[in-house]
């Protein structure tokens, strides 16, 4: 565990302690269990977003993909398909949406920022157009169980989150794919020179991000027992906050899954605590916004400080070399 991860763990523990003092109901097992259900949607998307941001990109459309895949799920089921198949189609629609993002970014050469801002509107529009603002409810018992009940004491959706986090960890920190992601994020030019298939990696990456939003859409639909077009609105703020709070640099090249997990825990614990203290939901949104900006700024300054000390200890700065002398 790195120093910054330990720091975040400490912050989380301090937060837990403070909140349990402020609110006696904090440590109540039932409350905790209910609160942890909300970890799943944000957590699943944060895992993929970590990788996206490490490459120096961003995906603002995850909230819209979440809503769209929920609608695809609901309406496919309503049209008569068996629910498991509808779930699969819903998740795949998310992956396809992500792939489209990737195509715009790689082949259309559209900066990820504006591409995913545009698809944010596009996918939300598709969700609205398919559903005509109608919603689908009353899913079968087993689906509701998945969304709202417990399995061996923990929320039934937890295994999904844990599985995703484990896979994300393996992919990012143990696999070839992960190495290439860090390389692209650190220096895309050098990655191309080093024979890394940058374009293919990016296409896969954005498809995976879409897939994660598709999974989140299924999870949310099960939890709420409703598929509606405006589901997931604004979730990109939460997700990006967790990732940035976890120490991932917006500029790319740095970040860990463990950091994101800690970021996720801190954010959701804050929101849980505020909920218990009867703080209005709007204030929660404000707090998340403030946290995002504050951590982003802090991350920048810490990185600057680190670079300065690193170059001092090495005795020279990278900038002063005669590369390109004639």
């Amino acid at each position, binding site marked *: 565990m790195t120093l910054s991860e330990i720091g975040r763990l400490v912050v989380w523990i301090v937060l837990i302690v403070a909140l349990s003092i402020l609110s006696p109901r904090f440590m109540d097992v039932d409350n905790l269990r209910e609160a942890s259900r909300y970890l799943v949607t944000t957590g699943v998307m944060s895992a993929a977003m970590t990788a996206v941001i490490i490459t120096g990109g961003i995906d603002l459309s995850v909230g819209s993909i979440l809503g769209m895949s929920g609608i695809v799920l609901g309406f496919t089921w309503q049209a008569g398909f068996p629910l498991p198949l509808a779930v699969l189609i819903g998740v795949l629609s998310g992956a396809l949406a992500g792939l489209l993002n990737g195509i715009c970014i790689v082949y259309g050469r559209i900066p990820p920022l504006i591409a995913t801002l545009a698809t944010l509107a*596009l996918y939300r529009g598709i969700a609205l157009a398919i559903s005509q603002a109608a919603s689908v409810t009353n899913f079968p018992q087993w689906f509701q169980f998945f969304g709202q009940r417990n399995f061996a004491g923990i929320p039934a959706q937890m295994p999904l989150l844990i599985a995703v986090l484990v896979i994300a960890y393996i992919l990012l920190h143990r696999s*070839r794919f992960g190495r*290439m992601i860090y390389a692209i994020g650190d*220096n895309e030019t050098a990655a191309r020179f*080093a024979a890394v298939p940058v374009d293919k990696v990016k296409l896969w990456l954005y498809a995976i991000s879409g897939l994660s939003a598709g999974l989140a859409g299924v999870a949310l639909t099960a939890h709420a027992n409703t598929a509606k077009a405006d589901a997931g609105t604004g979730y990109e703020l939460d997700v990006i906050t967790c990732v940035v709070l976890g120490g991932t640099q917006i500029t790319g090249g740095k970040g860990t899954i463990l950091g994101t997990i800690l970021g996720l825990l801190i954010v959701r614990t804050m929101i849980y605590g505020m909920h218990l203290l009867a703080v209005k939901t709007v204030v929660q949104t404000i707090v998340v916004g403030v946290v995002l900006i504050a951590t*982003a700024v802090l991350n920048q300054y810490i990185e600057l400080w680190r670079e300065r000390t690193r170059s001092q200890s090495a005795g020279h700065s990278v900038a002063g*070399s005669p590369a390109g002398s004639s």
Partner: protein
Amino acid sequence: MEQNLLSLHRISKSFPGVQALREVDLDLRPGEVHALVGENGAGKSTLIKILAGVHSPDSGEIFQNGNPVRITDPIRSRSLGIAVIHQELDLFPDLSITENLFLGRGLLKGPGPILRWKENHKRAGDLFQQLGEKLPPETPGRALSAAQRQMVEIAAALAQQARIIVMDEPTASLTEREVRILFEQVENLKRSGAAILYVTHRMNEVFAIADRVTVLRDGQRVLSVPTHETNRDEIIRAMVGREVSAFFPKEETQAGDPALQVRDFTDPNGAFHGIHLTLHRGEIVGLYGLVGAGRSELAQAIVGLRKSAGEIELDGIRRMFRSPGDALEAGVVYVPEDRLVQGLFHGLTVRDNMTIAILREISHYGLVDRSEERRRVTEQIASLDIRTRGPEQVVSTLSGGNQQKVVLGRWLLTKPRILILDEPTRGVDVGAKAEIHRLMGHLASEGMAILLISSELPEVLGMSDRIGVMREGRLVAQFQRGETNEEQVGRSAFPEDRVPEISTRDIERPSVTEQKGTIRFLRTLSHRRETILTLFLLAVVPILARLTPGFATVQNARDILTNISVLSIAATGMTLVIVAGGIDISVGAILAASATCAALLAKSGWEFVPVLFAACLAGGVLGFINGSVSVSGRVHPIIVTLGTMGIYRGMIVLWTRGRWVMNVPETLTDFGQGDFLAIPIPVWTAGIVVILFGLALRYLESGRMVYASGSNPRVARLIGIHTGKVLIRTFTLCGVLTGLGGVIYAGRYGEVQTNTGIGFELKVIAATVIGGTNIMGGSGSVFGSLLGSLLLGILSNAMVLLHISTYWEGVAVGVFILGAVVVDTARCQRGTGL
């Protein structure tokens, strides 16, 4: 020595591992052309960078007119009257030549701050007349050829009244004719009393134009004489003459079978032509040449980093590598020239850097075998003798020589059959250099075929079994080991007296009169977006009128225009922000905030004007926060405005306690719903805003600075523009304008809901981007954004009239943004950031 305009005395400069300059003296006298020559790596560019204020000398002094000075940064350099004319683009691609010359440096104005375009263009045109070139001054920087850009930089130096002009390889991309014109300009400059430092490797130019010549070798001044007292041979000897040291131990080996054969290799962009090259097993072929000879481009084309025409045969089999991955699989690898930009992953460890190319080999089912990885890395570190604390050290903390070894190690781990090394010992200390050379010899003796690209003659002569010399894209000479010496090789690399042959460059570049046509076409192209939009709208209207009777009525037209009034006002603000290089996705929240503010204040009895003022102020404050947090916190505006979007919205809900604000009083509704001369007031407001800001961006220098900041922030700072302040101002103005929109909104609808403005930011960005504003910054127009708003307005209106569900609007907005950006990106091919 008052007769010297600028005098450098015992200047030394070292970088980690290499002494770039060693006690160099240089005098620049008025009205004199002083040529500076030397091989690659001799120290010329370091000297230029010191004059430009990019580097500071470790020791030594600089005197100007006898007074000691310190050139601390580029701005100081310019203020001392030094102008450096580079080969790279130091211009604003989106701004006209006139602005590139005079922005921030004396644009003519009057009355007041209003720019006098006609006169400014004329001034630029006159300057070009002097230089013998006819170039429409309105041409944007990006439309200029390399030669023309250089001419602009020279003109800028003239305009700046620079006294010391440094020209760095100025004829590198010029045709015959252009070189003659350049020489005339240099004569003009001489006559005006300026001192010119002319850096070149072209001997005939030295004798054609220079009064004195100084030769640098290995960072030292070895010769400095008036040109009429020397000759070409003496200069070349001074540049390259040195004993071939004994510590390049390349054993004699029998060259084996041909491993790689390159035939008729030609670059579509002209960097090299008709290259035939063969590499045998166990052989080192040295490729010597000067900057611009095309060697790196050739090597990159061989491994598939560049497209090219020609044939490659690998062990007798025809191949073509479409990517470095292809080449790697075949055992052909390229170690790049610029390790900082093309080689190293600065923030990653030695281990990560080394294994990036062998990931597949050390992985099972996609997972990396850590212990195998560690084994190979440790082995390689040992065999290359890399001085590091261990595989986990971050490479940015290593010295240049060790960094180079890491990159080398990466490629050696792939066990290549053919190794192409591009300047492998550049910026590397003597000890590491010897180690790399020993390694090369060892690898060759084991059967590897090595292509060594190097600009260091001793290295090439000592290491190679065969030497090829490239000059201006062609392979002009080949030598066997032991059959030649430095002078002979050196001489073949230097262009002879220019033979008036027709180079392909002459054919590809159109003459001036043709160019005028091209430039004019390009100009209409840049206006085209607005023309296309207008034509599109004009075409769409009759179609829609045919489809629905309700469309082509006066009432409907009024409705459309009123509906888009808020949008176009906000789009005006967004245009400013995006042109300056930022983006603001919190404008929806700002709209809601200012509308709420206006409504509540009006309801508590405030008069119209104070309400207007307060709402705009509120918007301005919110915009200011966005801008200053981005700039001071150094966080990308998308993250900041993503956060403030949530914060501002939350605050609104808190303030209104979640309730709608209804029954907005007449003070506002008169404004939002009233007419003036039969035209709705909001439409007047929008029209006035668009015209005002459109004019301001065009006719105020501060407006042009917004474009400059977005077009090329680095150069903007060089000429003294504070890009951070510019960005903050645009965010603030965007907030103010959105605030105005909020007042109109509150007045028009008579109520403000909690979800007012949700999704508004997307429409605003869409209108701006459709209208032709480039998302990367630097270009765009307020009028275009108005047309974009009109397009969106007609679209929603048509959807309602045609009974198409408004849910499709989101789809349309998304598609429009994507389409508009694809077109723009294709047009200007700028690098992508976030």
